[in-house]
């Protein structure tokens, strides 16, 4: 800590900060552009100039750029000094000399850091009377719109895209006042994190194209604190709605999770919420009149459903890892614990249970997403993180780049001085080791990579554990190259201060998880203070594993055997999980199929009764991320406000209503908190979920939290097509949030739940400054969410998890068959985001990947189409040659629509080649 004197007042600040950071953390307004809490200081824009004095008696002082100035104890600073004020206004004036005065038609307007800073500095007159330079814009793909004429050359875009996110196709070209930020040619931005450009750019150069397609000003959007459902990372998001449509998703700051950045699936994959084909009314399919859906009123739907379920001998409930804990719990309550399935395939459920065991009883703590960044060595077993948990990949990249920081510290160069740090580091990175089936987009930071089948990756992990600790089981007959690699990695890891292991579900291999557990134990035995992160597949997979329940296989078998004759499927497309034949047999065998979902899935299309469920945008609930962090997402808007006939409700509401209808009793649960509490009370490991967010009775200064900015406009007119009378705003009984702009939206009172980033004078996402304890740190009220899994050391002395000894055997190469390994795609492998049109533009067509050696041995052309036989499936797929896939394996993308699910891990025969 240090004391500094700013404009006559004394402040205690963190001495390792730069002056700008310190001022902002104190709540003092100093304008800036090129600085960003996650990107550091580069001193380019000169906007943050303040006066620094030599000592108390110095009256002249000199201008310094606060972002480039370290904190000196007992230093004298002035923000209000006349020369500093005038200089800051001049900087805006210079920036404005080329900036078009197009705010009224610019999509950044009202959300624009440049606007905010212009107002802050007081530049409101134009003296520049000459022409402005102009640029041509580029097509950058379905996500990002480009308008270079607005550019103020702060260099943040390339610093984020290249330096932070490792992208290679966005650069800076030209010089003097003709600096251009773009690609060499028009084309889709390749980075999986391109969407962050819309928030990193301080003005409207990079804007959200999906937002543009149905644009609304920020102040006219209605937001809610929400959680991304795109994978298990649990990123905090801020979806914005208008007229009953989600119009954009922005990052919601959580200092322990995603802090400033999201991946593009999370940001641009929301289109499924708005799709016209969503079931929005309760439907009854009359068995006598096939394909004719009868819409029902809510009461009729409940009565008809209750009637059929009461008639049933036994009702099975199939839950879902993409539905909230509350909805799953409500289903479990309805059907009874003995009849509840998690909706997860048996193998995956077993692996989730093992992950739980490893995390609870294993040797190492689980890092938060943010915490991943502070590890100094990373071993990834099996996961292609960029595709399966993209935000984690971005954190791993920061861990690698952390290597520069220790070098800088030796030279006494502060961390925030990024260009100096990079000059020193010259690309030196902390070691990252990747063991994957094929090439990944983290290969560029990997010190070593290992490629093999899932079993070989497990063997690699087992061998590494043994190399670190002799008492860990040995791996027989490893080849020399692998042994050498393992030895080299082990010796590097031994000198690490904080190594991290990451493994997960994506290879569907229990052996990989066991290897990760052994590695964790070996770290522990070797005295390394490491961490272990296990990535589950879907938004609430971890939550479902904690809630418990039978596998989907069990449910289908029970139905097929006619041990039950009715089934309720909650937000789950069974055809994505088990072979179509088995699902068909089970559903054919049962009398009643009740589906509660928000998507018209193949399962939904077979339902006798469909009840329209809420997506994250229309309902609230709790999810548990891979980290074991329970986080609440809140309803963004009430669909019935815009569409009075709309029957969409949270699935838990439907299920509870159905439950009480069946039992002919009044409902117990009128609001979310009651369901959450009931769930927490009945499932001990979920006891903490009530603390994931404040209850519905939470108030600030007697008010609920407003979902819309106070400038929100058009409320009286937005429903005028239905009725000219403005109804009362919907009342949200489930949360402490109020619909519309009514309620608290300030920053003075610390709060965890922030629907949108706004503070007086700060309309852009930079407003997060005002909610944080220190800029870039945690929210003042604490970062949202609660970690449910106790950390080793804090949970008392249990039995430590012993080493697993089931080492898989070596891979056997055949000349006539290939093992099918799954390949993942950020765009395409996840069910709901794949229904968003912009995401669909980025999805690959199904393909067959083959290692280059195998392709050459088979004499296959790069443009060949290959007929693949896997079990009973015959697929004709275009060939994609991989430089890294191991001989004897073929890669097929997993999760793409209409692809068979049971082919992975099986053996493929490549029968013939058809010339393209």
């Amino acid at each position, binding site marked *: 800590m240090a004391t500094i004197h700013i404009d006559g007042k004394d402040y205690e600040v963190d001495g390792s900060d730069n002056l700008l950071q310190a001022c902002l953390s104190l709540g003092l307004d100093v304008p800036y552009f090129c600085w960003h809490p996650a990107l550091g200081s*580069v*001193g380019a824009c*000169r906007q943050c100039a303040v006066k620094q004095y030599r000592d108390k008696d110095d009256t002249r002082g000199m201008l310094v750029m606060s972002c480039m100035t370290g904190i000196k104890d007992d230093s004298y600073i002035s923000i209000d000094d006349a020369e500093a004020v005038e200089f800051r206004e001049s900087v805006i004036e*210079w920036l404005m000399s*080329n900036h078009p005065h197009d705010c009224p038609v610019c999509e950044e307007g009202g959300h624009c850091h440049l606007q905010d800073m212009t107002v802050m500095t007081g530049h409101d007159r134009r003296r520049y*009377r000459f022409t402005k330079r102009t640029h041509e814009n580029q097509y950058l793909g379905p996500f990002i719109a480009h308008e270079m004429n607005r550019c103020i050359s702060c260099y943040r875009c390339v610093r984020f895209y290249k330096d932070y996110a490792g992208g290679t196709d966005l650069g800076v070209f030209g010089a003097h*006042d003709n*600096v251009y930020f773009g690609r060499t040619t028009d084309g889709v931005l390749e980075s999986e994190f391109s969407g962050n450009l819309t928030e990193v750019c301080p003005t409207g150069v990079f804007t959200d194209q999906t937002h543009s397609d149905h644009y609304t000003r920020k102040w006219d959007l209605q937001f809610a604190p929400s959680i991304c459902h795109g994978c298990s990372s649990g990123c905090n998001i801020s979806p914005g709605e208008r007229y009953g449509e989600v119009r954009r998703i922005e990052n919601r700051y959580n200092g322990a999770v995603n802090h400033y950045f999201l991946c593009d699936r999370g940001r641009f994959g929301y289109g499924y919420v708005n799709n016209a084909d969503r079931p929005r009314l309760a439907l009854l399919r009359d068995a006598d009149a096939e394909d004719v859906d009868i819409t029902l009123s809510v009461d009729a739907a409940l009565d008809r459903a209750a009637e059929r379920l009461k008639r049933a001998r036994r009702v099975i409930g199939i839950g879902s890892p993409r539905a909230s804990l509350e909805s799953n719990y409500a289903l479990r309550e309805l059907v009874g614990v003995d009849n509840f399935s998690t909706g997860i395939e048996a193998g995956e459920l077993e692996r989730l249970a093992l992950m739980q065991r490893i995390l609870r009883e294993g040797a190492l703590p689980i890092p938060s997403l943010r915490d991943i960044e502070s590890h100094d060595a990373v071993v990834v077993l099996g996961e292609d993180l960029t595709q399966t948990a993209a935000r984690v990949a971005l954190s791993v990249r920061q861990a690698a780049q952390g290597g520069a920081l220790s070098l800088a510290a030796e030279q006494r160069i502060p961390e925030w001085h990024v260009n*100096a740090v990079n000059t*020193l580091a010259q690309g030196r990175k902390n070691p990252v080791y990747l063991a994957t089936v094929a090439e990944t987009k983290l290969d560029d930071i990997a010190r070593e990579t290992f490629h093999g089948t899932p079993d070989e990756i497990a063997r690699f992990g087992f061998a590494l554990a043994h190399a670190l600790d002799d008492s860990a089981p040995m791996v027989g007959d490893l080849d020399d190259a692998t042994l050498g690699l393992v030895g080299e990695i082990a010796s590097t890891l031994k000198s690490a201060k904080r190594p991290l292991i990451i493994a997960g579900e994506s290879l569907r291999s229990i052996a990989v998880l066991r290897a990760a557990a052994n590695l964790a134990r070996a770290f522990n035995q070797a005295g390394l203070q490491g961490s272990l992160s296990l990535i589950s597949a879907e938004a609430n997979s971890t939550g479902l594993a904690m809630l418990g329940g039978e596998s989907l296989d069990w449910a289908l078998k029970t139905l097929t055997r006619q041990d039950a004759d009715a089934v309720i499927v909650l937000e789950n497309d069974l055809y994505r999980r088990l072979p179509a034949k088995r699902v068909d047999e089970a559903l054919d065998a049962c009398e009643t199929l009740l589906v509660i979902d928000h998507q018209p899935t193949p399962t939904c299309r077979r339902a006798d009764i469909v009840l329209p469920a809420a997506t994250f945008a229309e309902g609230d609930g709790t999810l548990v991320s891979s980290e074991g962090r329970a986080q609440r997402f809140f309803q963004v808007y009430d669909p019935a406000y815009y569409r009075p006939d709309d029957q969409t409700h949270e699935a838990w509401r439907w299920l509870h209503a159905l439950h009480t209808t069946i039992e002919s009793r009044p409902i117990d649960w009128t609001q979310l908190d009651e369901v959450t509490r009931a769930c927490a009370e009945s499932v001990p490991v979920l006891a903490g979920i009530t603390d994931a967010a404040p209850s519905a009775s939470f108030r600030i200064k007697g008010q609920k939290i407003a979902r819309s900015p106070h400038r929100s406009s058009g409320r009286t007119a937005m429903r005028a097509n239905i009725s000219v009378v403005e109804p009362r705003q919907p009342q949200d009984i489930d949360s402490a949030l109020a619909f519309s702009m009514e309620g608290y939206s300030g920053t003075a009172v610390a709060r965890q739940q922030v629907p949108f980033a706004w503070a007086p004078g700060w309309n852009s996402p930079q407003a997060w400054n005002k909610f944080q304890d220190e800029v870039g740190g945690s929210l003042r009220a604490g970062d949202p969410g609660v970690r449910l899994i106790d950390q080793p050391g804090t949970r008392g002395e249990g039995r430590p998890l012993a080493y697993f000894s089931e080492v898989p055997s070596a891979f056997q190469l055949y000349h006539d068959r290939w093992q099918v390994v799954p390949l993942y795609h950020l765009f395409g492998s996840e069910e709901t985001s794949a229904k968003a049109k912009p995401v669909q533009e980025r999805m690959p067509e199904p393909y067959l990947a083959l290692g280059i050696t195998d392709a050459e041995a088979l004499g296959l052309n790069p443009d060949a189409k290959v007929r693949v036989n896997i079990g009973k499936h015959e697929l004709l797929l275009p060939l994609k040659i991989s430089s890294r896939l191991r001989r004897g394996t073929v890669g097929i993308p997993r999760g793409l629509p209409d692809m068979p699910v049971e082919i992975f891990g099986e053996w493929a025969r490549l029968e013939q080649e058809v010339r393209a």
Partner: protein
Amino acid sequence: MSATTPVNRRLTSFGTANLIERAPETHPLTWRLNADASPVWLEEYRAKQGYLGAKRALTELTPEEVAAEVKEAGLKGRGGAGFPAGVKWGLTAKGEGIPRGYLLCNADEMEPNTYKDRLLMEQQPHLLLEGMIVAAYANHSYRGYVFLRGEYVDAAKSLRRAVAEAREAGLLGRDIFGSGFDFDIYVHTGAGRYICGEETALINSLEGRRANPRAKPPFPGQSGAWGKPTVVNNVETLCGVSSIILNGVEWYHGLCLPGSEDHGTKMMGFSGKVKNPGLWELPLGITAREVLEEYAGGMRDGCTLKAWQPGGAGTGFLLPEHLDAQMYSGGIGKVGTRMGTALSMAVDDSVSMVSLLRNMEEFFARESCGWCTPCRDGLPWTVKILRALEAGEGEPGDVELLLELTRKLGPGKTYCAHAPGAIEPLGSAIKYFREEFEAGIRTPSTANAPQEPVGSV
């Protein structure tokens, strides 16, 4: 390598420096030059005491002693900034555990009106190589690069031939002079940007990055090219090194004229409408008047000196009354600007200061790297105002605005010294010739009309 200059073609740098009387004792930089400007190749160079300084340094002195001698001699950087070379060498990281780094020769001579390094490199490349060997020895550098302005085709030819000769003769490579010291030099031609003359931008450019100046610290001496300790010296600076080692500090201190606080000789010149424009090696401390009148022959008949610039476009304008200033950094400092490269330019009374400054600022605005706002967006504004004034379309307030910009683009406010250098001539031109600028104001004001207050926002 067969880069011989055609017999019929004289090097561009042929000129006055070849024609004046020179002696080894008084003209360490130029005494070896041939009157016909034919390059001094290895054989001739060695016959003229070539590589004796390097030999002494490598075989008789420790690196620290070499650095100390250069420091004591007071050899200042000749690229324009005048930072003492020996001090710079003393700051280079070396010693246990520190890798050997790079010695970079800044040969990106792009300062308008400056043409001294070209002569040294074209006609006497071995003097530079010798200086680099000595400097590399003093700084523990393991590779040297000559970062050469791309347009200097003849200099590139000369240097490449000289490097080949030196390698052949064992003056570069392993175990030079049997001293155990290894060092080699490569000639790197730049793509032509003024900012590459800024040492850290030069390093970025050499590494293949954008030629933006780097943040300091770390200084190149700590972490420069490819993260290694790096020394960047100007051509003329390096050319001055070997004579100091060979002849000693005392001799060097005797070179300048009384009154000079800087030591040694310096390439100086005068261009513009003078009778004998050119370049001469002269003792520091000589008055500008002597350079102009004795060497450059005074103004051409019919031309009257109106103003002059002491050392490159980035230095301030001075008046005829300042001609008695002595040419050394403090001497020119006394009259309010910097000596810069010491290649002066005479402005005669036929030249419009507005047009001259418009031309200069166009150059500086174009050569901004585009990194920091004041330079990138401020300099083009000065250009546009100057164009308006030149066309008689200036508005009241324009001159004040120019002065405001010269103030706000000054030292400390920008990322590097480019913009401060760019506006130094502008500020001084307005100071001495304000009426010329004001004469460009014709139209009634619109933009600069008195402001009415607007509602607070």
